[in-house]
């Protein structure tokens, strides 16, 4: 494990707008123990996944960005606003769904969401209106007058999401949003997160242990290990890029087929009697391959995209622990 600062240019800074999150040598120490170590990088994705094993510093990073902990060195900015100097402005732009149970006892759900909306600065009437809307959006419309103490774990998660979005923040921090949810509830939660992401009105930072959740929701992922930023991966780019790698299982004479493929400027490799590995050019589509196969009387029994799964990327990051930028 290198002692040097983890410095990754995680996304090209071609956009003139400030990055969603800009980490500038951010370090956090608790009682002399470093929790985050000189994190650097710019994150611009609509949905950013924070991954890492327990104790990697994911939640501490979120808390530091929210101003709950003071950085011991370096700083960070959110939408160009510094977390040290513009904390109040930043808090007006973000929503936060904590990992742990968090509510106010003896309060109805709509009262709870409205109360927090008002603390965000919404006038009482607007806060009440938005509280109803947010609760309908998350699917708690029918239960909104019930006391929060009577809610199940899944309902509490939804109430936490409602309070995080009620004031219409530009950036939403979701810390383990699917914790303790059963499969249907998890699917609903993921669907809502994707809806918020696809609305284009808010960026999302999703911290989770569950690779599948992150893979389904996020475009960019950042992997933390021992307080260091060890891997950045743009899943969108990787998905696009990985679609060019094809694995074919065929029946029939492969020679005319591969020579036809070669004429399309696609690289190929025969990996077995009936197996071909192809790298498609940008202008080549999968249907061209099917067309060539039909023309050369080759049956395609199986076609698959070869790609690194997020699990592969995560495991590699955990094994290496080196600062790296995942590339297709």
């Amino acid at each position, binding site marked *: 494990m290198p002692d040097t600062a983890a410095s990754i240019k995680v996304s090209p800074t071609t956009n003139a707008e400030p990055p969603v999150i800009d980490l500038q040598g951010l370090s956090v120490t*608790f*009682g002399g123990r470093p929790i985050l170590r000189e994190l650097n990088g710019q994150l611009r994705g609509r949905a950013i996944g924070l991954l890492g094993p327990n104790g990697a510093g994911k939640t501490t990073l979120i*808390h530091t960005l*929210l101003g*709950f*902990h003071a950085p011991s060195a370096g700083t960070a900015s959110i939408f160009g606003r510094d977390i040290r100097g513009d904390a*109040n*402005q930043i*808090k*007006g732009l*973000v*929503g*936060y769904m*904590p990992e*742990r*149970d*968090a*509510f*106010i*006892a*003896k309060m109805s759900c709509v009262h709870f969401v409205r*109360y*927090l909306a*008002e*603390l*965000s*600065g*919404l*006038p009482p009437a*607007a806060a009440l209106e*938005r509280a*109803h*809307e947010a609760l*309908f*959006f998350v699917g708690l*419309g029918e239960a909104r007058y019930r006391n929060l103490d009577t809610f199940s774990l899944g309902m509490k998660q939804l109430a*936490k999401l409602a*309070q995080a*979005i009620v*004031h*219409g*923040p*530009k950036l939403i921090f979701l810390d383990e949003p699917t914790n303790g949810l059963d499969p249907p509830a998890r699917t609903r939660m993921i669907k809502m997160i994707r*809806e*918020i992401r696809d*609305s284009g*009105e*808010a960026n999302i930072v999703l911290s989770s242990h569950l690779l599948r959740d992150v893979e389904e929701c996020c475009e960019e992922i950042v992997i933390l290990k021992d307080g260091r930023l060890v891997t950045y991966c743009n899943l969108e780019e990787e998905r696009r890029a990985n679609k060019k790698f094809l694995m074919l299982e065929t029946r029939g004479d492969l020679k005319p087929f591969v020579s036809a493929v070669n004429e399309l400027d696609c690289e190929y490799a025969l990996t077995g009697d009936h197996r071909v590995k192809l790298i498609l050019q940008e202008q080549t589509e999968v249907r061209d391959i099917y067309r060539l196969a039909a023309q050369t009387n080759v049956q395609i029994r199986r076609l698959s995209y070869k790609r690194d799964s997020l699990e592969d990327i995560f495991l590699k990051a955990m094994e290496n622990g080196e600062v790296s930028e995942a590339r297709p």
Partner: protein
Amino acid sequence: MAVLERAYKPYVGPLSPQWSRFLIIPRDALRDVFRSKIFTGLFLFSFVWPLVCAILIYLHHNVAALTGLQIPLRDLVSIDATFFRLWIVVPQGYLGFFLAMLVGPSQVSRDLTNNALPLVLSRPFSRTEYVAGKMSIVIILLSAITWAPGLILFLLQSYLEGWSWFSQNIPIASAIFIGSLVWILLLALMTQTISAWVRWRLASRAVLLGVFFIPSIFSVVVNEIFRTQWGYLFDLQALIWNIWSGLFGQFVGQQTVIDTMGAEQIDPLASAPPLWASWLVMFLICAACLGLLSRKVKAYEVVK
């Protein structure tokens, strides 16, 4: 967004002024506390004594009523600084203590127990505003039963007695206001601090009672052992008593005795500590409460 659209939309409307947001906390909390019939009853009962005092003031200026009731004027308590201190500020202050004991202990502990602080403090709402909001619950309630009726009675007396009485006794009005406010601030700080550190409501009420009454015993022990009156600096009741006396211009600090040589000397057994000492200790207690509060009122506690 309309309810039926169910899509995520940002909020683009106006925002409430930052300075007014801390008032959301007492507004909500007061609505909650007045749901309790016991509390509402006690709160209304707190106005009975000021009403009795108002009747007394009225009788002082109504000879016909006194004659009708066959009460000689000299038997009525005179309306002066002592009346306002002992008949209004002190009893209302003690009633305020019991009200604060009912309302205060659950305020911060409720949020800490259910991890609500991260939700509150992740918004454009500071810890200072949070503490100010929580303290204002006690401040608003106790103001309504202490200095507010006290000043109304002062104005009633001024109205009945005339402008000259008002202009001569204006320090009484400031003593009512400042004396009550000091007591209210102390109670607000102590209840919120205890609420932050002792999460069980019954226990925190017991601690509040203990903080006010156990040091009284301790102070007596200290006075007896060291043959002094400085032990009263440990006694919150004695402290506030001294401060009220000082504000009403009735503080008697040093007592003197004539020694065997006929010289006048300070009597340490009878002399109270100087007034500044009471103010200083009061200030230190408030500072300690603020320090303890700031250690607990955090989104997340860092375990070192």
